[in-house]
């Protein structure tokens, strides 16, 4: 229940509650909603993004502009947020001819990409060749990255 939204919380006191923490256990399975350690690939991805930010105009031999520094920064923040979930695979990182940055994950029949188009906007695309599914959407700055994380996890689970 969404405790923050209700007023009843102010009018009640909690009864005794079972201990929530199980820090003393050795179980390694992640419960629902558990945040893991940040992914260890993040520093590598950040270095790739810095290299992308330094690309000169015409880097693709077809006259593409230099990537927009603000978009690269936004992409860095997006992937940084995604990495906080932990236990996710490393993405491929590519500049796009339009000045954006694209992250890709692929495993078996599953493919997912998220392209940061502007400082506060990204679009994503998911494909599962085995199930013949294609899904797409968009996410804006300030919004939940839950869908992005769910798609990356889907790709990861195919490996």
């Amino acid at each position, binding site marked *: *229940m*969404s405790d*923050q*939204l*209700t*007023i*009843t919380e*102010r*009018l*009640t*006191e*909690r*009864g*005794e*509650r*079972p201990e929530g923490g199980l820090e003393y256990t050795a179980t390694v399975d992640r419960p*629902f*909603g558990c*945040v893991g350690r940040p992914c260890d690939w993040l520093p590598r991805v950040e270095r790739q993004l810095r290299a992308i930010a330094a690309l000169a105009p015409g880097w693709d031999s077809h006259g593409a502009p230099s990537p927009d520094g603000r978009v690269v*920064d*936004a992409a860095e*923040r*997006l992937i940084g*947020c*995604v990495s*906080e*979930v932990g236990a996710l695979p490393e993405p491929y990182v590519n500049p796009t001819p339009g000045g954006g940055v694209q992250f890709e994950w692929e495993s078996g029949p599953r493919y997912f990409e998220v392209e940061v188009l502007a*400082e*506060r906007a*990204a679009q994503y695309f998911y494909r599962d060749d085995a199930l013949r599914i294609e899904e797409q959407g968009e*996410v*804006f*700055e*300030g*919004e*939940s*990255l*839950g*869908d992005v*994380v*769910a798609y*990356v*996890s*889907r790709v990861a*689970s195919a490996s």
Partner: protein
Amino acid sequence: MDETICPMPRFARPPVVETVLGVHFRPLESFASAQQGMLWERCFRSQFPRLEERPPVEEVRERFGEDRLSDAPTIRWRVMDRPDVPRLWAASEDGQYVLQIQRNGLFLNWLKTDMGVAYPPYLKRRDQFRQELDQVDRFLQEETIGRLEPTSCVVTYVNHIDYGGLEDIGPAVARILTCGNNESSDGWLPLPDNAVLTWGFPIPGQSGRLNVELRPIVRRSDRKEMLQLGLTARGTLKTREVGEAVAWIDLGHEWVVRGFASLTRPEMHRLWERIE
């Protein structure tokens, strides 16, 4: 689930003490504290004069199938290290109604402030909330801030149920709920002296989920031990239209009310004077 069941369950003395109808929408870049204050002053101050600020509430999206396994806590894409815009918490003079406004959400609470307060009909609360959504949408357009693009909805009902206290919690749960039988396989365990129970019931078509939570609480007003049964229906929208959001709230309300009747035993229904 039997979809032919009708009409909607109704109770003359329902144990509900609070309801929330809410909509999350696309975050509005220019809907900061100043604009929220303007909105409150222009549209809501007369009806909700008591103002507080709270941290914003995160949007929760229900997930299905294998995505449930990857269900991480809400992580937002934040480009800049700017502070969150607070949530305005505006209460009516008598405290019965609260309107909550934040950069990506609008919520209307009703609270049973004392035993004599009558439970307002759902349609009245729904229509009031629809009017408030329309007022916000008009304000956003007048101030060229943007449009309301709803992304998900929430319907919450909180019920307080009298019981015998923690020493009786196992038998009480069995008396009250259809899905708590207080049995063990061999009688070895003593009766429990605490219980916090949660359930999730998917709404067909992956259009949402009814989340139910039962926990013991102590009512501050009289220090009485109660069981709090909270039912929250959440759903993600497809079209980003206010009309769809209101239609989903109707669906969420139906799941909360039918879910409550289905989860609680007929003996309790008699106590709450079920009419239909």
